[in-house]
């Protein structure tokens, strides 16, 4: 379980997250929606410790992410992350991209790591592209590569940071399909997204962020059909 208590995050004087309380259960798919700058992406970075926090706590399966004694590199193996700008490693083939972390972080043998990598690439539909460099892949393929790379660490949670926002419209579908596949397989997912269709159809709960505050959280039917907050209704009206 990921559990967030009274989380405060500042960038200098800017108060980006203003006391977030949130629990995400194993197996749950949570979509986080809201305008740009509302703090949703920052929330993800605070969960896997890529951003420091100023107050409150984030715990993953009981381990305090931001405590001094925490082995953050070990903890991050549980938390796969997919970025808006997919961030594939340009100097490595698709297979090497995925095999690198299992090999050097988990200490798998070269053969083992390559086997895991091939399996994960197959999983996201890139079985034909093992020896291709990212530069020769489309944005959608690179994003699926990034998903395979995260999955190869056998994470228990997946964090998606606007995984489809930087893609050409015709490539969004293949990435969302891959995310749906993961959700169907029971992966615990936190998806910061602007894809309202995905949020409505796939998530168990949807959280709406507004200016650093989690205004509202609930099942998709409630958020999309019967939002309590004025801000949520306004946002959704504008998005549609």
């Amino acid at each position, binding site marked *: 379980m990921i559990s967030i208590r009274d989380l405060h995050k500042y960038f200098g004087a800017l108060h980006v997250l203003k006391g977030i309380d949130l629990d995400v259960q194993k197996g749950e798919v949570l979509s986080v929606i809201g305008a740009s700058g509302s703090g949703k992406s920052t929330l993800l970075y605070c969960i896997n410790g*890529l951003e420091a926090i100023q107050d409150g706590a984030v715990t993953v399966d009981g381990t305090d992410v931001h405590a001094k004694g925490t082995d953050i*590199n070990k903890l*991050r193996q549980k938390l796969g992350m997919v970025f808006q700008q997919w961030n594939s*490693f*340009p100097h490595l083939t698709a297979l090497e991209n995925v095999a690198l*972390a299992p090999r*050097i972080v988990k200490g798998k043998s070269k053969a083992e790591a390559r086997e895991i990598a091939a399996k994960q690439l197959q999983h996201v539909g890139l079985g034909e592209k093992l020896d291709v460099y990212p530069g020769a892949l489309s944005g959608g393929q690179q994003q699926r590569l990034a998903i395979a790379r995260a999955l190869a660490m056998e994470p228990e949670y997946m964090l998606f940071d606007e995984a489809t926002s930087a893609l050409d419209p015709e490539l969004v579908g293949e990435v969302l399909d891959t995310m749906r596949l993961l959700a169907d397989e029971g992966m615990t997912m936190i998806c910061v997204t602007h894809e309202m269709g995905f949020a409505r159809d796939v998530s168990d709960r949807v959280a709406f962020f507004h200016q650093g505050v989690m205004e509202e959280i609930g099942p998709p039917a409630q958020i999309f059909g019967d939002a309590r907050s004025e801000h949520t209704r306004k946002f959704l009206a504008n998005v549609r």
Partner: protein
Amino acid sequence: MFDYNFHWRPVMKSLPDLLEAASLTLQVAVLAMVLGIVFGLCLALARLHLRGTVYWFATAWVELARNTPALFQLFFFGFGLGAFGLHLSPYLIVLAGLTFNCAGYLAENFRGGFKAVPETQIRASRSLGMTPWQAYSRVVIPQVFRIVYHPITNQMVWAVLMSSLGMLVGFRELSGETQFFASRTFRIFEYFAVTAVIYYAIVKVILLSSRLMAARLFRY
């Protein structure tokens, strides 16, 4: 009006000596480059990530290496240190001078290389559980290496050619050796013409092997 008689025979007779001196040239240039890459990398990292004394030391090094004549830098390690009673051998003077100079230039190449790799590559690596060192050595540095590869080749050529300054501090590398024979036989043109061809050949070999290596190393 043009009544110079070419005499190539003395040059041909001392060709073995010239070639041996050429190997010394190559040796000191390669060594200076290896050391220059190590120091240059340290200087670049110091200038990117450190503050205070180390930062200023690195900056001063780079500034002096790039903005003063290479010859003066050699003279510093020769006559400069000599004035304080520290007498280096001609070989060490050239090695130190070239290393100092190359490190300064390479530091700026590396700095540019590091800046060209997006910060997000490190974030992605760290999100997979890599340590900062793993992210640097497996993800960032290989990309930096490609960016600085051709500038490094350039610097290698420069190091070979610049080592000819060694003749001015009494080092018998290719130019020093040529000067030695030329002044003994007065066949100055012939000697320096042949030596120019040797320099040309060395540089050509460096450039060709660099290109071959690049084709093997960089598939993306």
